[in-house]
């Protein structure tokens, strides 16, 4: 009898208490997350918008249509995709390689600890300034190196066809430190006995890496890739750090999606276009996340 009463009472009481506890955070989430989200969604479908009075009217797909046919937005999308789908695999592979190398030489661990942590604690803007000089057409070390190798020096910061590549190289380098640290932490968790077993089993170095290290590290690799993809998709500060807030390189040639949205909103005051661009972006990100979830199930081993 009594247990039955408890069973019917408990969830009710707990439910009420739970809601009460949740209330403060729910208020915060509603005010700062859900309300703005709906506001953006609404804005994206205004037909007319007056910036000074912050009022819009009408409901239609005009803003969306404008953004989707805007060549600058196309440029922003293709640049962002380049930074993401070319940059991230390279930076993840590079970080993994370096981490495995450092991990295999115990004596190096201490020495490298500071070296590879350094870029992580310096701000992206400071690093950007350094890269500006590295990429400098006349005085930059990269062109110096190119000349040394007998290659044609390039206008890294001013050639519209090259600036996105420069930004990608910058993001690759800038994100390396954190990824190496995450991979080293992941490698630490792999039981060394598997490597001893592999040696006894006569496994070649290549096979140890591909058949043991990679699969056992796959949860970390996956996590790092996820973070990197999302981070790369939101690339903005790297562009600002290398160029300026005013323009993403010559003729905005290095523009990214977030830079585009920012520009539309603050520079041009076209809030409904900015909102429409954000909506398109949101749809792309949601699709990608869904895809990643499906792929994750197939490829990762969770020990």
């Amino acid at each position, binding site marked *: 009898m009594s247990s039955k009463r408890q069973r019917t009472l408990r969830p009710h009481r707990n439910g009420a208490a739970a809601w009460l506890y949740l209330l403060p955070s729910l208020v915060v989430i509603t005010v700062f997350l859900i309300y703005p989200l709906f506001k953006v969604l609404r804005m994206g479908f205004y037909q007319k918008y007056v910036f000074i009075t912050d009022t819009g009217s009408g409901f239609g797909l005009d803003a969306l249509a404008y953004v989707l046919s805007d060549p600058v937005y196309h440029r922003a999308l293709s640049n962002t995709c380049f930074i993401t789908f070319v940059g991230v695999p390279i930076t993840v592979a590079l970080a993994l390689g370096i981490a495995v190398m450092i991990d295999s030489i115990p004596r190096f661990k201490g020495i490298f600890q500071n070296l590879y942590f350094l870029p992580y604690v310096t701000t992206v803007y400071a690093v950007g300034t350094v890269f500006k000089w590295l990429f400098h057409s006349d005085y930059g070390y990269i062109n110096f190196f190119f000349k040394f190798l007998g290659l044609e020096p390039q206008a890294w910061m001013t050639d519209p066809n090259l600036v996105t590549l420069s930004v990608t190289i910058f993001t690759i380098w800038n994100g390396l430190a954190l990824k190496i640290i995450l991979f080293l932490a992941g490698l630490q968790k792999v039981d060394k006995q598997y490597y*001893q*077993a592999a*040696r*006894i089993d*006569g*496994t070649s170095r290549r096979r140890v890496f591909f058949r043991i290290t990679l699969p056992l590290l796959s949860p970390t690799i996956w996590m790092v890739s996820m973070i990197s993809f999302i981070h790369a998709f939101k690339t903005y500060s790297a562009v600002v750090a290398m160029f300026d807030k005013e323009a993403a390189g010559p003729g905005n040639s290095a523009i990214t999606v977030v830079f585009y949205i920012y520009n539309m909103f603050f520079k041009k005051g076209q809030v409904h276009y900015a909102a429409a661009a954000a909506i398109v972006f949101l749809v792309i990100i949601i699709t990608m996340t869904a895809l990643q979830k499906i792929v994750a199930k197939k490829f990762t*081993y969770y020990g």
Partner: protein
Amino acid sequence: MDMKLTLEHVTKDFSGTLAVNDISLTMQDGKLTGLLGPSGCGKSTLLYMIAGLEQVTSGHIYFDGQDVTTLPAETRGVGLVFQNYALYPHMTVEQNIMFPLLNARVKKESAQKKAREMARFVQIEEYMHRKPAQLSGGQQQRVAIARALVKSPQILLLDEPLSNLDARLRLDLREEIRRIQKETGVTTIFVTHDQEEAMSITDELVLMKNGIIQQIAAPQAMYRYPQSRFVASFLGNPPISFFNMVAENGLVELSPNLKLKFPISLSGPVVLGIRPEGWALGSGIVVEFLSVSVRGREQYVSFMLHGQKAYAILDTENAVKPGDRLSLALKPYCVHLFDPENGLRLGKGDAHYVE
């Protein structure tokens, strides 16, 4: 397939700790040798040096006369079962067993066939497509043995393979290991710190302490003729009891009715070791029981003997209780004489009664 394994003055120095200290021995080919000793005595270290996972500090290791001291692990043809199995968690049982074969560039079909044969041999063929995490400890252990055996190793090394299992399973699996070893005839070293396990399945026992070999003998011989106090106390459960006595020309008198003559002529202080199963009700020495505990088919009793506590295992035919004063007889071959200074055995053979 069997192979003679010889160690010559093998030493391992872990920056100050002598984990293995000048060990020389020859393991009989095709036999199951037990490596026994308390925790931290260097068993795993010795095993890893034989496997090639650890470098020796000094000394030499020979497989069938060939010096393998500096050969890397992968070229030694050794199968090793780790204490915690170290099965690759992301591979199925089949992939785990096939792994060493694929490393050796065996064709996939024949590797699969061989893996299946091996799985049948250790009786795990119905789990071929499971991951290790989906297996019980005993099943994992069989997979580990299959993986070690599949490449037909010349030497099989087992590092406390049963220590993670429950008592019942250990009993079954140690017989299983014995069967597998007998059928394959592979020279095997079985590390354990469980003396009962070591005694029950091995052909020969190597007892270690602090990196030094204490005695090498067949299990029964080591139990019957322990070469030192340490060996005597390490083997046997409940353990042997020791008494400080005085010998006169090899004769030790426990009571006027119980005099033992040892095969050595020596006078002075000695340590007498008496195995608890050596006692039985009968004429000899009268003692008063302090405690009695009945364990199934036998009872453990304690009593004072020459001011020192002694233990005995008696059969349950005659029930006894604390406070009983009864006469006990002693089987002479269960009594051993040791030097009180260095703990070494005094006298080679058995003791016998004298009137």
